[in-house]
């Protein structure tokens, strides 16, 4: 199953964030409760962790890039050989995540 | 002090003296303060500014022109009594809003501290400002930042018609400084030597880095609040104030001490008369501002 990693909309509509770092690379296994990436809003550093396991298959942004809430940051899949969608915003389940702002 | 008194009399002789707050009875405060300040010390005062401006060294002719709105004054008729300033002689400025100059004075003191000028800001304000929040905000920050600031309250007993006891809950005005740990003293504001000594101590303390000081200078306002305000105090009370005239008191003392002779006094009077007459001539000769000049320096 393909899941998309999305900048959490719970932060607010149209909030811009800056990607600070990935804790995982393409091909890595992401376990439940493991940190995936960190970004910053104008107010806080936000650590995004996985609440579902998966293989990180594709990262669309790198450190320093700007994103908005709702943007697709990457794709995860259950199997390494699952074909990825052609379009970045293709329909897919949204990966459940936790996010801690500090 | 005699110059201040005589100058104000000349002001009242002008065809249109305008809305003026006189210093009659409060001359020792203005003169005593200015005697204790160095030229570099910025002096800020309230709208009761005529005595303080003269004492600080604003030329009487220019001041008279300013007060009646002519172009020959230091502020070209745009300040008048309430906002007169002449930084070149150390009069940083009056501010006509009661309590308005207190926070500004804190800023002026901050600049002295930050720029290391070694100067002390002194703000003279009326007892009417003691109920104002700006005084308490200023006392707080001045104590917190140990600003080189002397807050001198000219307590003439009344804010227009309201007696101090009806306006301020604190039994003594010096109590207002106590919560902030600011040294405070009450001084006889009709004794010019006592004022100069107290201000000198406060200013030099502030200059030495010991932070702010609060002074209550007690005096009596011998005239109504302003030239446009009716006198509401009972005639007997006003009459009684004559006994607190700082000029008479000082004259008597100097005579008793053998410092002042009739000849010296007469000479002093003649000097003041001449200075005031010259001021009147200057103000009379001064031109009115070009109306278009109202748009300058906006």
């Amino acid at each position: 199953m393909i899941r998309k990693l999305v900048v959490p909309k719970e932060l607010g509509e149209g909030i811009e964030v800056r990607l600070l770092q990935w804790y995982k690379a393409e091909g890595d296994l992401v376990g439940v409760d493991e940190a995936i990436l960190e970004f910053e809003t104008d107010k806080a550093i936000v650590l995004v962790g996985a609440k579902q396991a998966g293989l990180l298959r594709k990262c669309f942004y790198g450190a320093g890039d700007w994103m908005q809430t709702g943007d697709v940051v990457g794709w995860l899949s259950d199997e390494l050989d699952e074909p990825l969608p052609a379009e970045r915003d293709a329909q897919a389940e949204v990966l459940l995540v936790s996010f801690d702002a500090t | 002090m005699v110059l201040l008194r005589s100058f104000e009399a000349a002001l009242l002789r002008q065809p249109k003296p305008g809305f003026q707050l006189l210093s009659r009875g409060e001359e020792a405060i203005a003169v005593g303060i200015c005697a204790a300040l160095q030229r570099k010390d910025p002096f800020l005062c309230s709208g009761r500014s005529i005595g303080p401006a003269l004492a600080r060294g604003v030329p009487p002719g220019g001041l008279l022109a300013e007060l009646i709105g002519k172009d020959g004054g230091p502020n070209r008729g745009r300040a008048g009594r309430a906002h007169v300033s002449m930084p070149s002689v150390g009069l940083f400025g009056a501010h006509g809003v009661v309590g308005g100059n207190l926070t500004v004075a804190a800023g002026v003191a901050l600049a002295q501290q930050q720029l290391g000028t070694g100067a002390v800001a002194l703000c003279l304000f009326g007892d009417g400002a003691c109920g104002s929040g700006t005084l308490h905000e200023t006392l707080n920050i001045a104590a917190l930042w140990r600003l080189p600031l002397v807050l001198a309250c000219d307590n003439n007993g009344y804010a227009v018609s309201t007696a101090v006891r009806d306006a301020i809950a604190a039994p003594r005005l010096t109590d207002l400084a106590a919560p902030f740990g600011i040294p405070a003293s009450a001084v006889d504001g009709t004794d010019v030597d006592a004022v100069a000594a107290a201000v000198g101590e406060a200013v030099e303390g502030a200059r030495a880095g010991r932070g702010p000081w609060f002074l209550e200078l007690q005096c009596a306002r011998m005239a109504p609040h302003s030239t446009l305000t009716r006198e509401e105090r009972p005639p007997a009370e006003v009459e009684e104030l004559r006994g607190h005239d700082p000029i008479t008191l000082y004259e008597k003392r100097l005579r008793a001490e053998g410092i002042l002779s009739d000849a010296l006094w007469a000479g002093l009077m003649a000097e003041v008369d001449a200075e005031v007459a010259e001021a009147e001539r200057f103000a009379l000769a001064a031109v009115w501002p070009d109306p278009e000049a109202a748009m300058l320096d906006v």
Partner: protein
Amino acid sequence: MSRLFFREALCRAMAEEMERDSRVILMGQDIAAHGGSYAETRGLFERFGPARVRNTPVAEAVTVGLAAGAAAAGLRPLAFITYLDFLMLGLDALVNYAAKLRFKSAGQLTSPMVVKATAGAKGQGPTHAQSLEPWLMNVPGLTVLAPSTAGDAYGMLKTALRAPGPVVFIDHKKLFPRGGSVPDTEELVPVGSAAIRREGKHLTIVAHSYMSVLALEAATALAAEGIEAEVIDLRSLAPIDWETLTTSARRTGHALFVEEGQVVCGVGAELAFGLRERLSSLRVARLGAKRAPVAPSPVLESFIVPDAKDIEQSARDLLLANVKNGTHRTGKEET
């Protein structure tokens, strides 16, 4: 160009000006180790020390007075007012002292201070959300600036910190979460210059601060209907860039003025009148908050304060000429 958060652009401007001019000092609530209510002074306390980055008590009267007096006596203070609403407590020193000082001293004294205050509705309710710019525009001697982009925040704050007289620099809570391009080399935005954010021929939409952002959104939506709106970001509310406004309005013949605050004696009222004095034929409309205090409930707040859809509708109304007698208060409901 670098992309920075709005607050980072402000911070860079302050840092550069403090580096350039030792007279620049900062004063305000929570600006020292805390780094500012909007994180806009982060790092400055550590870099410039407690004498130049000063926390103040919750005492706006003395904060503004300190800045006014310190400016008159040789410093270049920047005073922070967390919410523009609270500037009311410091208006005497700003309006009666600083704004009049050059005039009343006949040019002997000036007060080159900056007050930075944050306006705008974002859920904080009646006394933490107002847009009071017109009060300040009304005062002779005050310069009033209100950027809407990170780049302008940088360039305009630098300008403010070098300006000769008191400047009120108004930012907006909803601008802080936004990023924007900021020039890598020093660039100042002159006082009194509006910016054309989008060109169009059918009508001119004039806005400032966060309403400029919404006006651009509205213009994009209107373009899909074939309505080409020119969007002018006022940037400087006092003085006003009449030339840019007049040139645009003459071309389009229609001007819509958008502000977040009250329209009564508002920015739009002044601009509409000023343009009508300059142009013989111009259809005008204004859009602003409904005649109520700003409520904290999101439902109430969004009803009171204009949004992009309101701007679109006002633009359509103006062009459809359902405007009687040339002026018209548009919005969701007539008042």
